[in-house]
């Protein structure tokens, strides 16, 4: 493994179908991804983006979409501080386990020296915890982003 890799696992009390919807539906992402709406046709080879107030924050290409099991997309940050860093890859694996779904998020093909690498290490746990909270309680987390992590949030959310 030449490139750095992050793996996040959480168990969410929901169905795989509902979790899939939460990952791909703008009305859902807006509620847990701190106001960011996702849009795509969710077909391999098509584009997707996360946008807040009309401005793209993250964009890339759908690499694989196998609902409700696996979603893979490339990841390009649109924030000025780390847009030169190139493309990384995000994989979501959804695995039903009785009453819960095991969600595994893998972010890899990252540039070790880059800003993305530092940013996502704080950002994903925040997004994943908020997603879990929304699906289990109907509310996303209201997180006040610390100023020192502002850049991280800009890249991440």
């Amino acid at each position, binding site marked *: *493994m030449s490139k750095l890799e992050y*793996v*996040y696992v959480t168990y969410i009390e929901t169905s795989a179908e509902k979790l899939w919807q939460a990952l791909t539906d703008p009305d859902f992402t807006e509620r847990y991804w701190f106001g960011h709406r996702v849009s795509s046709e969710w077909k391999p080879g098509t584009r997707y983006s996360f946008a807040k107030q009309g401005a793209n924050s993250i964009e890339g290409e759908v690499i694989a979409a196998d609902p409700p099991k696996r979603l893979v997309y490339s990841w390009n940050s649109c924030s000025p501080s780390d847009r030169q860093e190139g493309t990384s890859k995000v994989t979501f694996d959804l695995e039903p386990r009785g009453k819960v779904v095991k969600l595994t998020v893998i972010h890899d093909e990252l540039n070790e020296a880059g800003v993305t690498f530092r940013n996502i290490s704080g950002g994903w*746990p925040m997004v994943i*915890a908020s997603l879990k*909270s929304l699906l289990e309680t109907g509310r996303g987390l209201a997180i006040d982003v610390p100023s020192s992590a502002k850049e991280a949030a800009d890249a991440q959310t």
Partner: protein
Amino acid sequence: MDEVFKALADASRRSLLDRLHASNGQTLNELCDGLAMTRQAVTKHLAILEAANLVTTFRQGREKLHYLNPVPIHQIGERWIRKFERGKLTALSELKRQLEKRDE
């Protein structure tokens, strides 16, 4: 959440998490390297960390790689940290980190 606290209530297990935090995705051999713990002890500690969802493993070819999963620790934080405290707490821990740098 009990499992997470129990798993963290052991210095050896915390040091294994430290090693993964420094370098994610290690094999058992890599994790044992330079530790004053038997391979069996490391295996046992990793099983407890995995059961608490603090460590996740993946097979890559013949190797089993271990990854730190910070999501449960984040959830503990979310439970007791209020919305507007986060910025101040980040500033405080950054201050502490800077002042204590030599001890790291």
